[in-house]
């Protein structure tokens, strides 16, 4: 089966793409920046963070670039004023959802949420911030799970399932009460399924899952996608 090459416009720039590609893939190939948080190359797309929403000419709806396939003669706008405003507000919402205090966070300076706020110009939070008091699980020999810093992007769950093939991690509850859990909500240290591959820590964009005794800046693999696609953690 041959894949058709098609033409489309992103932010006015004429680009060519393969038919099955997503808008995000095509944009990145052409060095057009679309912010993402829950997306990670090599994992299935979630479409949950809504940062990669783009406008497509002719449709009143917004589309997640990470999971929308390109089509011929599509005209995509990635940076309209209203999109930028939405993105800033979404980062604001994430910062106010749980206990995010950069100064005391293991991920400080190596945090994708922090970077995103800087990048998009979210300089203050207009909403009441919620200080959560979820239990921290540090029962694992090397890994810590701190739900208070989690943004529920589910990268850890997906990498555990799709790459490591274990599915130790999953979600419990719903909505604002959603939480990443180990096995059937058991202490991580008691998990029989966890292979301690530490991929979850490597893909966590914030400081919710981290390796004990190390700041995230020391442990984070800069070549994430390559890592996710194959190479095993040290």
């Amino acid at each position, binding site marked *: 089966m041959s894949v058709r090459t098609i033409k489309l416009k992103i932010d006015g720039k004429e680009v060519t793409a393969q038919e099955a590609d997503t808008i995000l893939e095509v944009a990145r190939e052409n060095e057009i920046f679309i912010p993402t948080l829950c997306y990670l190359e090599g994992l299935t*797309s*979630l*479409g*949950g*963070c*809504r940062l990669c*929403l783009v406008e497509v000419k002719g449709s009143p709806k*917004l*589309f*997640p670039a990470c*999971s*929308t*396939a390109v089509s011929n003669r599509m005209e995509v706008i990635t940076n309209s004023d*209203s999109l930028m405003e*939405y993105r800033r*507000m*979404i980062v604001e*919402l*994430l910062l*106010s*959802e749980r206990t995010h205090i950069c100064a005391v966070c293991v991920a400080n300076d190596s945090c994708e949420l922090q970077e995103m706020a800087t990048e998009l110009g979210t300089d203050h939070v*207009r*909403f*009441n911030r*919620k200080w959560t008091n979820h239990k921290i699980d540090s029962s694992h020999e090397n890994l810590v799970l701190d739900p208070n810093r989690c*943004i*529920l992007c589910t990268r850890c769950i997906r990498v555990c399932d799709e790459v490591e093939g274990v599915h130790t991690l999953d*979600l419990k*509850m*719903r*909505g*604002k*009460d*959603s939480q990443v859990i180990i096995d059937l909500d058991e202490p991580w240290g008691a998990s029989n399924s966890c292979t301690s591959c530490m991929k979850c820590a490597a893909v966590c964009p914030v400081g919710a899952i981290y390796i004990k005794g190390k700041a995230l800046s020391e442990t984070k693999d800069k070549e994430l996608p390559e890592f996710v696609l194959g190479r095993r953690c040290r």
Partner: protein
Amino acid sequence: MKPDDIIKLAERDLNLRRSYKYRINVCCSSGCLPFGALKVLKEFQDAVKEFAVEEECKVARTGCVGTCYLGPVVVVEPGDYLYQNVTPEKAREIVREHITKGAPLKNLIYSNETFFKKQLRLVLRNAGKIDPFRIEDYISTGGYSALIKCLTKMSPQEVIDEVSASGLRGRGGAGFPTGHKWNFVARAPGSPKYVVANLDEGDPGVFANRTLAEADPHAIIEGMLIAAYAIGAEHGYIYIRAEYPLAIQTLKRAMKQAASLSLLEGDILESSFKFDVKLRLGAGAFVAGEETAILASIEGRRATPRPRPPYPATSGLWGKPTLIQNVETLANVPLIINNGGAWFSRIGSPRCSGTKCFSLTGKVKNPGLIEIPMGIALREVVFDIGGGIPDGKKFKSVQVGGPSGGCLPEDLLDLSVDYESLTKAGAIMGSGGIVVMDETSCMVDTAKFFTDFCVDESCGKCVPCRVGLVKVKNTFEGIIRGEGKVENLALLKKLGNLIQETSLCGLGQTAPNPVLTTLRYFEDEYISHIIEKKCRAGKCFTSHKEASRK
């Protein structure tokens, strides 16, 4: 069984039905059961024996006639005498006077012309008239004749064309043209194909789909069969919430009976068409009614929506083409096949043909289940069918479309009930809930109530809905505590807009409707809460006052 056998069965049962001089229909659906409908039914059965009128009077257990505020409700045919609030004692009296002496008990009869006059019962054609536990009852009123017509006289494409011509649109809320959808699924490559009937009616105060399933389960099954024939599907699922035990029981029986007459499973009516249906019970999540969430749930995963495209029509259950329809949409299908698409397209308004079932609740004299032709004015629904506001109170607002419907003020009451008009005014057709509020309702409190519901029901997958709604809720809590600021209102609008535009699924996209419409039409109430710290309806600040008194 062959088609002819079904036709013979229909004739036989119709003759049996006609052999009775009287028929007593006792509503035993979820609305009347809590009032003791089963005891009433038992009493009727005993009484006809006692008065020796068994031969001429049939006592039938039926579904809902819609007047849920009068339960238990009993209808005596011929003449459709509607008896209200029937007790076992009254049941005995009805048999003694009405059946044996032919003298209807005038003082017990409910005569409300307007409640029924402006309604048009197509989907609920059999509700309250047939015994949902007897497939013969359905068949004798013309049931499964549309399926027979499809199998013997029509090609699948002709069926789709007929549905397209009818102008029928999805009754689940979005109003997508049904014929289009069928064409998409029929043309989508891949097999097997699936039909999913959506009966996950999770809205508080909405009970239209439940009533349909309890009163006329075979209409849903026949609709599914015709849809499956048209699109070439082999398997079907009815996704129903576990909180509907009677509807589940009714559907289970109906499926079993249909299978025993070779109307389901195997070679249907000895043709080459095969179709089976399974029930799937939802475990209590509002979001599971969203079409992609339903698919996830049926596949055994967490009921969370996913981005579309790909649409279920091309990639649904297990990646195969899947047709998802609300049960009300499906129940319309046999009528369209029997009477023709052109007939159906003349009912209702030009762009919205047919009828819509609504659960009419709140501050109206006649709450219940109604079915109205599309295009009727909201005022007629509230004041004619609903009978207006009880206790001499004044009308304030009507919320259309379930928890994420908009709250409309009095000057919009002449709005016609159709998808476009409602959406333009900030409401939605939704799953069919109409809640009427009088002057004692506080609109700020109302908006908060529905926001709380959506916060609890958000699946948490996307940020705007999961976090944004919580922030809306927090803002309301502040206002109701007397800590509101005028700036809150601008932020509420911005947040509402964000959630509407950027949420992943319909739940999030419509969740801010109550907030945005109350801000649009009742801003003065917000202002008086914030500036004067007063609630005109006297709902809010009460605990505040009590606290200060202490």
